[in-house]
């Protein structure tokens, strides 16, 4: 599975949203599914999927799907786009 696919799956599973909704511009707290509770579930999903340990700054900074990619890249997770 590509890293893009893994990322999408983590969002789909943590937020219970459709795959089509997981686009770079999707932002935290702009849809009811991505609230602060779901955010912590998302963090756990991403940590599992990419085998990383995210710190507290990462959790605060992860304000969009695009930002999630940027943060994961700092942990050597590569995305093609």
């Amino acid at each position, binding site marked *: 599975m590509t890293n893009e696919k893994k990322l999408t799956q983590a969002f789909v599973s943590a937020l219970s949203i459709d795959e089509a909704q997981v686009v770079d511009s999707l932002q935290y*707290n702009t849809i009811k599914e991505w609230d602060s*509770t779901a955010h*912590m579930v998302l963090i756990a999903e991403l*940590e599992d999927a990419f085998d990383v340990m995210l*710190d*507290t*700054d990462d959790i*605060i900074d992860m304000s969009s799907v695009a930002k999630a990619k940027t943060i994961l890249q700092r942990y050597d997770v590569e995305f093609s786009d």
Partner: protein
Amino acid sequence: MLTDREPHLPEIIEEVLGLPVYELLQADKSAYLLPVFNQLHVHHTQQCASYFNAFSSHGSQFKTISELPFVAVRLFKLLNLKSVSEDKVTKCLLSSGTTGSTPSKVYLDAVTSRWQSKALVKIMQQFLGKQRLPMLIIDSPPQTSDGSLNARAAGIQGLGLFGRHHTYALNSDMSINWKAIEQFSAKFANVPTLIFGFTFMVWQHFILELQRTGKQVNLPQGHLFHSGGWKKLAAQEVDNTTFKQVVKRTVGISQVTNFYGMAEQVGSVFMECERGFLHAPVTADIIIRNPYNFKVCARGERGLVQVLSVLPYSYPGFSILTEDLGTLRGTDDCQCGRKGNYFTLHGRLPKVEIRGCSDTSQSPLS
């Protein structure tokens, strides 16, 4: 003539969040925060009719922080105070009220919530570093939400950011979930862990219950953070020192940090230092006032605590007069090294209803 665009209030608040948490000398901090509070005052005057009615006659540019108006904390129970339109409200925080008492309502928009989390993260990082630790929560798992969030659940969620493997120590009837605790302590006995609970819950439903049953829980590397009212504990003659001693004796935890915060100013909490004093972070400040004439008390003089925070943007709660009694102990010179104002608390003003996250828990034992 065109002038340079004044920075918008949200940008200025973001800037304060970027400052070191405990390094600014009080004089520098006050000079930095005064224009921010002045702008917040103007913002709420423009956006909140109740705030306008109460305070617009006070002026708009105050020369010192102590001249700023303050909102009595109980107004958040009586009025729906908000400074953003209804469609911008993402969350309404309710301070859990006991039967017969009205809860406070605090309206949050997306940006205010984010600042609250960010401010709390910056403060907690000073004590825990950036890493997240296995977390034991001395409370029951959250009940399904109806859209509003009670203050206890919000507090747990806020601190939950610093945890991983979140484990709830209590069942929904407040009995101890022995299995959960045993698994947690077996797995994480030898690593640093984060333990969080509201003061009264930790005492009544965890510490006393362990003592009563004689069961052992050992988390020597745990760091317990707790907050909430002391009123019920004061009735049992348990003060902060006793609390720490008994926690150490019962669960082997020597790192115990109390903090002062409230639903009306989530995020900019006042943490207790190694010397036992509560410190104002860069995002907040305190002023102690005489309860009869509201004059500013001198260092060492007991009075009502006024709390100020740069975070309340969606509701007019940046300057609140609490019903808590405190004493300013000093400024810039605490032996722990943190700068700014530091203080101690002495509980509630007499005849004030019981409020606070842990005091409002309906205990079957009390």
